[in-house]
């Protein structure tokens, strides 16, 4: 791992939590075998039914991600930040949440939205340029995907604190990237969460790059999870491609938060298999050999092997899951063919709760402009029709 330097930190912890292990915590290893106990950090393997469910969600999510990347390459979406290879972090985070909890995702986390039940069409609305956030945030309890890095982490802390103040059981979970942990907002969020003992979980997907910048340019400490100690909350350094471990650690953090024990920082060590977005060219800054290494640590292959080994995944079940994934891909393609006309006049509708005269004026101005253009288009059409009619008269 590029960020592991020789320097060792001798941090005395005031909180009753293990220091982040220098080796990532894991329950299932790269080859799909149960990891030795000393790597499990005291966490138990989830039961086979839970693992099978996580497997299904990862397979479906990956198929969606691959499909959307393909659509983007065809130029049908403005952009799409892929989470290929990061399914274990994304799916575990969502699976650990209850219906009453809130998720604060980033642009990277579309498959987390999918897994929490947002229809593909509503996920893609923003990426194809219809509107900034295309789903019902309240219905799904998912905040708008955040692009300004780390800003959403503070919102998660605030919502979680509100839940605590209202004596409710709602927990907030926010997803962050490794690069985003350099932003001041990330540090403020960690500190507020700890000071206020907010029921919040920070899941940092350490995919080792912030666009082109590797993690060793972001920080000099051993792990991101180590930082938790400095704020006075537990931090876990987890194999982010082991969905079993990510799920076990994240669910326990969510339950701790719900029980009033405050926040947790979880670092999932993973890798961004695709470019940052479609407009990025990773060959300028990454060794393609790394991809090979991380392909061998694939979260889905690993769990597939494990489930087969314990007899929890039959060929028929796998085929079933694949079929479900293909159906979703077909739905996703289909939703792109459905035209989603956005009324330009809606631009003025959601700026203030109280209508403003100035905006009404501007709306009327645009409406008039649109009418005039429509009229012009109609005239042009009539002219074309007339000339076609004239020509066909000659021809017949």
């Amino acid at each position, binding site marked *: 791992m590029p960020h592991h330097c020789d320097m060792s930190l001798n941090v005395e912890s005031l909180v009753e939590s293990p220091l982040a292990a220098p080796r990532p915590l894991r329950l299932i290893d790269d080859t799909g075998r149960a990891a030795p106990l000393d790597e499990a950090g005291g966490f138990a393997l989830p039961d086979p039914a839970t693992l099978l469910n996580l497997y299904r969600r990862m397979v479906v999510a990956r198929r969606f991600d691959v499909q959307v990347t393909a659509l983007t390459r065809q130029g049908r979406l403005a952009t799409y930040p892929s989470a290929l290879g990061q399914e274990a972090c994304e799916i575990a985070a969502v699976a650990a949440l209850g219906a009453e909890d809130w998720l604060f995702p980033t642009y990277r986390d579309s498959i987390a939205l999918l897994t929490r039940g947002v229809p593909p069409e509503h996920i893609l609305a923003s990426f194809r340029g219809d509107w900034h956030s295309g789903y019902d945030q309240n219905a799904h309890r998912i905040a708008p995907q955040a692009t300004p890095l780390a800003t959403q982490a503070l919102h998660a802390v605030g919502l979680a604190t509100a839940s605590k103040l209202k004596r409710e059981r709602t927990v907030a979970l926010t997803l962050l990237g490794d690069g985003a942990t350099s932003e001041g907002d990330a540090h403020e969020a960690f500190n507020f969460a700890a000071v206020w003992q907010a029921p919040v979980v920070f899941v940092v997907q350490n995919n080792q790059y*912030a666009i082109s910048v590797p993690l060793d340019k972001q920080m000099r400490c051993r792990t991101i999870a180590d930082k938790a100690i400095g704020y006075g909350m537990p931090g876990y350094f987890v194999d982010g491609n082991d969905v079993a471990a990510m799920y076990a650690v994240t669910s326990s953090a969510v339950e701790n938060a719900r029980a009033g024990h405050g926040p947790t920082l979880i670092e999932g060590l993973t890798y961004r298999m695709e470019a940052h977005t479609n407009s990025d060219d990773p060959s300028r800054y990454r060794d393609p050999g790394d991809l090979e290494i991380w392909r061998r640590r694939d979260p889905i292959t690993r769990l597939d092997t494990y489930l087969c080994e314990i007899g929890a995944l039959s060929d028929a079940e796998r085929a079933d899951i694949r079929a479900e994934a293909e159906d979703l891909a077909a739905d996703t393609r289909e939703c792109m063919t459905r035209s989603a006309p956005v009324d330009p006049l809606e631009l003025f509708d959601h700026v203030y709760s109280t209508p403003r005269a100035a905006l009404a004026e501007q709306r009327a101005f645009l409406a008039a402009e649109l009418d005039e253009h429509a009229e012009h288009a109609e005239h042009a059409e009539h002219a074309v029709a007339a000339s076609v009619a004239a020509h066909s008269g000659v021809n017949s």
Partner: protein
Amino acid sequence: MTLPDTAPTPLRAPVTLTMAAALNAAIQDAMRNDPTVVLFGEDVGPLGGVFRVTDGLYAEFGESRVSDSPLAESGIVGTAIGMAMYGLRPVVEMQFDAFSYPAFEQIVSHVAKMRNRTRGRIQLPLVIRIPYAGDIGGVEHHSDSSEAYWTATPGLTVVSPSNPADAYSMLREAIACDDPVIFLEPKSRYWAKAELSLPVRTAPMTTAVVLREGTDVTLIAYGPTVKTALATAELAVAEGLSIEVIDLRSLSPFDDETVGASLRKTSRAAVLHEAAQFGGYGAEVAARLTERNFYHLAAPILRITGFDIPYPSPKLEQYFLPTPDRILTALGTWEWN
């Protein structure tokens, strides 16, 4: 005004350059001439920036002068201040307009005020490059026009080139300037091309230029809207309307002399920008031109701008951005007699 280069940059044969390449050449030449120029920011190193403005500079100048910083805009500007206090000339990048906001406090409270607070004892020769504005189909937070935040801040010099020649010349001048410069790069013009013999020297960075002469209307534009203004002037010919197009280039300071002279000639003016109208930069332009030239005006000065709403998603930005059509319609609302 001459550039305080330690060695003159040799004149090269003409080549076709995009604005991004011209900016790149400006930084490269400045770094070759002045060892105190350093460059850092997000992805500006081996990647060469997301718009490739810093392409090749890491390879040429190495890690000590070109580096990828931790991902934190407040940190980038804050540390640039310290470097500038200690004899370096930092050129830093905010990756996109809206991502400069974490640095707002550093820019407004320190970059802008240092000279004044210290009675001139400390100056900050630093350049903050900000790709800005829309019309590139960008998703949210990638198309903001935040110029009014900067122009409303005394102590900042705010400039914006609209073409490759100015991009080169103005960036050289900004880097050589002993005051902090907010250098706004219109994203939609990064790929605009021109044939240039570098090092090209255009009008001083803080002056406006008349790009096209006309007699009936002064159309004032800057950055991304200069192209729109020129297209409008071309279309207006068919309507018998002669439009003079001014490229402001410098938003702060404002070139009262050039713009005022044009206005006194045409007696009508309109100012164009992508940013929202309310409290926008155009308000300052209209107000100061009116104050100084009221008795020369045949009509109120118009602002033709984006609507007073957050910048729209890609599919809707076409309805937001001022078009030649919209500009001509606006000019048609004046009484012409």
